[in-house]
């Protein structure tokens, strides 16, 4: 078995554009769940409106992709307002219910034949990010980073994607270590206490929901630009749960948690995938065929999340003593 090849595949995925888009979406989710205590189970919905914001603006409306970025951001803000307005005054469970439903509704609606003239229905939309790749400063070639090789477009989207992640991390760091961040964290601990000290809890929750949603939308944009294709089925609810898994893995409520989580998550998932594939190819697992790998991968994620919750609920970067104090 070629372990070097398996490792190369895993590392490529861990630093690839998909991992970057997940890291971005998880940074947004970290603002919701890790800092404000908002249970958003529909982060994928924000990714979807972000991705389709670009796709529809370019493919259907014929606008510039950069206008599309703006459209995607505005869509995320509107979605946050729609979700937050009725639910943020209520107990946190209601936001969870509303968001998980909203994510599914968006996916099914964008996929429906009714919406096909605008969204491309089940076929989705393609080839809307040429403007992005036109800006690529790297001449078309294969680029080698040690044992890894990337094409010029991959390198370009990776640099932009991880650049956005870096900006997101700095942004969250500054915010969380400010009086604004203090209010957000106090809401996570006990919103009535924050209210009793004169803080407009509802408005701060709304701000957090919008902010995390917009960062999630940026993640969705990186995702669709990477493949030059927006298809509703790639915004499956399971994406949100992958995001939760990697956030908990890295450490929720830690600035670097979502980034470390995204890198490790894709390293493990793709590495495991490649390992199984090569084992099957060599006939070591006669009871499996390559078609089963997807399902096994999914159960592995579930098992991983379970083990994390039992043995290291604070994640890799989290602090045990904080976890113990979590009264919720």
């Amino acid at each position, binding site marked *: 078995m070629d372990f070097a090849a398996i490792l190369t595949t895993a590392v490529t995925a861990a630093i690839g554009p998909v991992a970057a888009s997940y890291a971005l979406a998880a940074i947004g989710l970290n603002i919701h769940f890790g800092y404000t205590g908002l249970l958003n189970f529909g982060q994928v919905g924000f990714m979807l409106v972000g991705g389709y914001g670009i796709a529809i603006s370019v493919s259907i409306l014929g606008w510039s992709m950069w206008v599309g970025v703006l459209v995607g951001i505005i869509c995320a803000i509107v979605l946050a307002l729609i979700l937050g307005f009725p639910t943020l005054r209520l107990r946190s469970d209601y936001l969870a219910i509303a968001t998980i439903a909203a994510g599914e509704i968006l996916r099914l609606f964008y996929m429906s034949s009714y919406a096909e003239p605008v969204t491309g229905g089940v076929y989705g939309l393609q080839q809307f990010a040429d403007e992005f790749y036109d800006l690529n400063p790297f001449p078309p070639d294969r680029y080698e980073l040690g044992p890894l090789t990337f094409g010029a477009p991959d390198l370009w989207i990776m640099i932009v994607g991880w650049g956005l992640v870096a900006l997101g991390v700095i*942004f969250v760091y*500054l*915010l969380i270590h*400010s*009086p*604004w*961040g*203090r*209010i957000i*964290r*106090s809401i*996570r*601990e*006990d919103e*009535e*206490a*924050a*209210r*009793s*000290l*004169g*803080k*407009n*809890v509802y408005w701060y929750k709304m*701000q957090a929901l919008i*902010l995390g949603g917009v960062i999630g939308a940026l993640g969705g944009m990186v995702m669709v630009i990477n493949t030059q294709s927006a298809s509703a089925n790639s915004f499956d609810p399971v994406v949100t749960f992958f995001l939760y898994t990697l956030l908990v893995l890295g450490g929720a409520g830690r600035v670097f948690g979502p980034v470390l989580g995204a890198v490790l998550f894709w390293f493990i998932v793709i590495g495991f995938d490649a390992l199984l594939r090569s084992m099957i190819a060599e006939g070591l697992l006669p009871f499996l065929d390559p078609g089963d790998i997807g399902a096994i991968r999914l159960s592995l994620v579930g098992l991983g999340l379970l083990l994390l919750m039992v043995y290291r609920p604070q994640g890799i970067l989290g602090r045990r*003593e*904080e976890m*113990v*104090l*979590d*009264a919720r």
Partner: protein
Amino acid sequence: MPDDVKTSAFDGVVAEPGVAKPDPILVADGVTRRFGGLHAVNVGHLEVQRGAITALIGPNGAGKTTFFNLLTGFDRAGSGRWRFDGDEMSRMSAYRVARHGMVRTFQLTKALARLTVLENMLLGATEQRGERMFNALLRPVWGGQEKANTARAEELLERFKLIHLKDAFAGTLSGGQRKLLEMARALMVQPKMIMLDEPMAGVNPALVQSLLQHIIDLRDEGMTVCFVEHDMDMVMGISDWIVCLAEGEIIAEGRPNEIGANRAVIDAYLGKEHGTAPAEETS
């Protein structure tokens, strides 16, 4: 007793429910709250004297905390109006009530467990520039203010003997320390009136004395203090004025000695004599 001067404010005030005070900071009229068929609060008229310690007493289930919740915006009254320091406060949301200078604490302390003691304190400071999202990114905009707030917070922590814990997570504090922290945190808001919901509940006897002294000190500095308590003995020593609630209504008001001798209060606490009491008691 240090409260001689203060009680003189009540000279000539008759000990009866709903009596007018010389300088009321809070005036409530017809405040009601129902839970289904139960009249939890039904207060006809109440005035709270500025700069005094007013205790709200009553047996369990008398509606003290509910009344507190209504006044501070944590619950919505069925009817009624109340003015605080000249401002109409009825139907105002809780955070606005706090900004108007009426700040409360909770019976079950709400220490923000995964914030440090100092962060808990700083949260109380009002009108922080860094609480706006875009300012928050620019430390120079709010750094100076944060420094001043930190100095004030440390002063208060010193006074409440919590300074050695300032970097500890609030969740690691004992019950009594949390009560102290909550009181100190409320003071960070610089309230005109502080509303303490059972400040002595669950606090060990040694700390109770220091808590009581803090309350008296606040009054002596000119703050209006209103607190809920059901333990009569605690109340008698420090209150300037006592309001007794039973089954949602004010049944008596007066100075501590007057309340101690009040028939209605004794009945409410011990049950009306002979036979009828156990059957009628509500919990």
